[in-house]
């Protein structure tokens, strides 16, 4: 120990020379801090204590604290250096000890003292918690046994004291490391693999051992989820939780029930918390304890000042306290959740996304109503699960009803976890027509997480009796004048004739049509008969013309024998004329030579016969009017007449056949 002191003295003296030249150049911020590599160490575990003098002018002495409960393994080793940052000079001297605790317990190392520029400065004290080493487990029961023996209140008080001590920033302690160790936020999820629509509870917690004023600056958006927050007590209530053997006060920042809306890997956004940590800085009050610095400096360090004991420091000699608010921003680590899609194969048609455990009731408010009234179909789905996301069951309303969108009323139990409650759908149905109608059963399906299957609930069918109401629907009413009122009734006298069978299909019609036809037929028959009679007489005359002529000629021949020549010629002439008359269908009175000639020419009788005929007729006429009679000549005329008639007969026959 003596060797150490001497070396320090030499070192300090040499410092005077080194620093003397530059102190005048700067008036930088002076700091004297103590820092330890770890606040919590095990017995037999070496750790480092560093006393750092920053920008200290004219350091004349340095006294380390008394390491009563620690054994110095190494040191002091010193470090010094300077740097220029942003045009400002920065200088430090560090003295480093490596020490090892001797006992279990909480120890406070008071700060080291140094004399700088004629003033005594002191570094911050450091509290070190020494726990039993892991290797010596056999000591553990011995160690805990007396602890349990303490009254509870005392143990608590000790704990509180320890917690309070965390808020104290000792000299040389790294602020960031301290904050990191003592404040953090964490997100707890109750499961990381779940079905679409299944409930997931996410709890964001703030763990702290320091007095802090925290505010949440970034709230997670929960992309891909439907979130329902659980109300938290205000002001927040702290609970205690032990993490890695260290007791933390835990504040729940946010507790949210999450329902994934899509499948896949979803990430819970981090929450960001802004903390203002109030750290206590201890500064030793120098005025109260006027110490001779040189006494300290040159005293035997082994000499123990009774007031140097840290306990005395605390109780009687409380250091001056300064508070420092340190801003510290922290955020949670992102959490990934795997969301499985709901099975598709067995999905019922009425499934509309409900996951959990539900019950459904459906009721109608009346069984009988008129078309003027409205019917309310009330469907209540209650249970546990994504109640807030329930879709109304599809109601197949018969065509006789007009359906309106349901009125949805939620009755979700506040702060229930898992989310439970009921959702009520009120369908208003307007009957359009009278009659007995049946509303088919309401069907509701959900996915039961417990049994991993779809379940379907079905209500019974409702039968409704609808009576005709007073109002009727008038859709296309034309409101122009007199366009929507019917004209008045006909009130006159009607001709009350029944429309019997139609005349067109009655037998009378056909009889009446037949009668004139009969008359027509009768007329035709009569005319035909008459025509026949007329035609027949001419025909006979024609046919028997030859015979008649021959008969007359026979008579003429008798007259010839008797010598009655006048009668003979008369008869012959008559026979020829008569014959021509009959044959040519010309009345006897109308006959003339010219007409005969025309007719015969018409009948294509050759000229020579016509000439013979006229010769004969001329002879007869001559003989009638000239009385020179000759028997031979009469005989010749007779012969000629017979010849002409027979020739004409032949000729006419031929002509007829030709025609």
């Amino acid at each position, binding site marked *: 120990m003596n060797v150490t002191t001497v070396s320090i003295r030499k070192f300090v003296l040499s410092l005077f020379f080194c620093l003397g030249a530059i102190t005048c150049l700067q008036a930088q911020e002076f700091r004297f801090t103590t820092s330890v590599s770890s606040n919590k160490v095990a017995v037999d575990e070496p750790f480092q204590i560093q006393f750092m003098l920053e920008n200290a002018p004219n350091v004349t002495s340095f006294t380390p604290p008394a390491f009563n409960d620690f054994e110095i393994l190494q040191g002091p080793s010193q470090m010094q250096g300077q740097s220029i940052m942003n045009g400002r000079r920065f200088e430090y001297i560090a003295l480093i000890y490596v020490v090892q605790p001797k006992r279990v317990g909480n120890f406070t190392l008071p700060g080291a003292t140094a004399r700088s520029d004629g003033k005594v400065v002191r570094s911050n004290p450091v509290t070190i918690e020494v726990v039993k080493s892991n290797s010596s487990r056999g000591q553990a029961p011995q160690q805990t046994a007396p602890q349990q023996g303490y009254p509870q209140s005392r143990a608590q008080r000790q704990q509180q004291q320890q917690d309070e001590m965390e808020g104290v920033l000792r000299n040389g302690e790294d602020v960031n490391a301290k904050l990191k160790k003592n404040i953090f936020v964490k997100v707890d999820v109750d499961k990381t693999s779940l079905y679409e629509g299944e409930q997931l509870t996410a709890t964001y917690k703030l763990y702290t051992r320091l007095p802090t004023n925290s505010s949440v600056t970034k709230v997670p958006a929960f992309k891909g989820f439907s979130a329902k927050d659980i109300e938290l007590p205000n002001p927040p209530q702290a609970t205690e939780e032990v993490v890695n053997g260290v007791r933390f006060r835990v504040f729940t920042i946010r507790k949210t029930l999450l329902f994934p809306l899509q499948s896949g890997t979803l990430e819970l956004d981090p929450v960001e918390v802004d903390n203002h940590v109030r750290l206590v800085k201890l500064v030793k009050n120098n005025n109260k304890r006027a110490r001779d610095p040189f006494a300290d400096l040159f005293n035997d360090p082994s000499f123990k000042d009774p007031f140097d004991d840290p306990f005395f420091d605390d109780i009687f000699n409380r250091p001056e306290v300064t508070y420092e608010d340190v801003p510290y921003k922290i955020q949670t680590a992102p959490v990934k959740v795997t969301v499985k899609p709901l099975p598709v194969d067995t999905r019922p048609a009425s499934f509309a996304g409900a996951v959990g455990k539900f019950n459904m009731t459906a009721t109608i408010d009346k069984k009988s109503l008129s078309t003027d009234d409205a019917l309310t179909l009330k469907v209540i789905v209650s249970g546990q699960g994504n109640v807030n996301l329930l879709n109304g069951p599809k109601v197949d309303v018969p*065509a006789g009803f007009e359906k309106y969108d349901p009125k949805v009323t939620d009755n979700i139990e506040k702060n229930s976890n898992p989310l439970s409650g009921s959702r009520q759908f009120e369908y208003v149905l307007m009957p359009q027509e009278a009659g007995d109608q049946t509303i088919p059963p309401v069907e509701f399906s959900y996915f039961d997480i417990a049994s991993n299957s779809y379940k379907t609930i079905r209500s019974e069918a409702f039968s409704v009796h609808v009576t005709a109401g007073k109002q009727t*629907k008038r859709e296309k009413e034309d409101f122009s004048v007199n366009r929507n009122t*019917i004209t008045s009734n006909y*009130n006159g006298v009607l001709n*009350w004739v029944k*429309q019997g069978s139609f005349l*067109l299909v009655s037998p009378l019609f056909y009889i009446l049509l037949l009668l004139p036809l009969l008359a027509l037929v009768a*007329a035709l028959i009569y005319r035909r008969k008459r025509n026949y009679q007329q035609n027949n007489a001419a025909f006979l005359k024609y046919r028997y013309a030859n015979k008649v002529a021959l008969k007359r000629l026979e008579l003429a021949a008798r007259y010839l024998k008797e010598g009655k020549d006048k009668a003979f010629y008369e008869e012959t002439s008559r026979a020829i004329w008569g014959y021509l008359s009959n044959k040519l269908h010309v009345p006897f009175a109308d006959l003339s030579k010219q007409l005969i000639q025309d007719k015969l020419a018409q009948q294509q009788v050759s000229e020579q016969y016509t000439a013979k005929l006229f010769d004969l007729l001329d002879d007869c006429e001559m003989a009638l009017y000239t009385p020179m009679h000759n028997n031979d000549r009469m005989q010749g005329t007779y012969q000629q007449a017979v010849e002409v008639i027979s020739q004409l007969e032949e000729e006419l026959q031929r002509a007829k056949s030709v025609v």
Partner: protein
Amino acid sequence: MKKIFTAICAFLLLYHIAGAASAPQQEFEKANGLFRQKQYTEAANIYQQLIDQGFSQPELYLNAGNAWYKANKTGLAVFNYEKALSADPFNKSAAHNLTVANQRVEGYVNDLPLLFFQQWWLHVLHFHSPDGWATGAILLFWLSITGIVVLLLIPAFKPVLMRWGAGVLAACFLFYMIMGISAYMTANTHDQGIIMGTAVKVKAAPDNESKDMFELHEGVKVQVTDATQEFCKISLPDGKTGWLACAEIKRL
């Protein structure tokens, strides 16, 4: 004795005939009175009885339609107005009341307006009653036959006039005959009907199991194009076709 009995019989018969002749008018007036007292259903029932007895005056149908309209039976009202119009297409009251009644018909599709020649045809067709056409045809037939007979028997009696006269009369007879047949056909085709059910499902095929295509409401006029025992195939002016139970249609 026998004479007295015969006289009583004759008297009863005459009385009966006279009573029967005036009874419809009395009923008609009674119904008109009920209508004025706003007892529409009762009035409509009396009109309906008269129609069922075989009377088919357009005025009777018009009054029956009015009564059914007031009694909120739109289907029957439309049916009766249509009946009145089929008997007398130019009845302004019936046409007006039909449009008013059709305002109440849900899903009413306007009939296509008639083209000018259809109008002419309608005018010509209703120039006479079907029996009028038939009577005219008989008279013209008689006249033309008379002309022909005269022409046959007395060919010398104004043959040109007779020939032309008979020809024109025969042509007129043919025209009257054709019109008479058309009028008869028109009066006896029942291919149109009015839907009587409040909401009738029109099916894709003539059986109850087939799927519903659309719905028709009371009072819609449909064209019946085909029919089985129970189902009728209908078509609408807008081109839709389907099958529905024949019981839902009241044929015009």
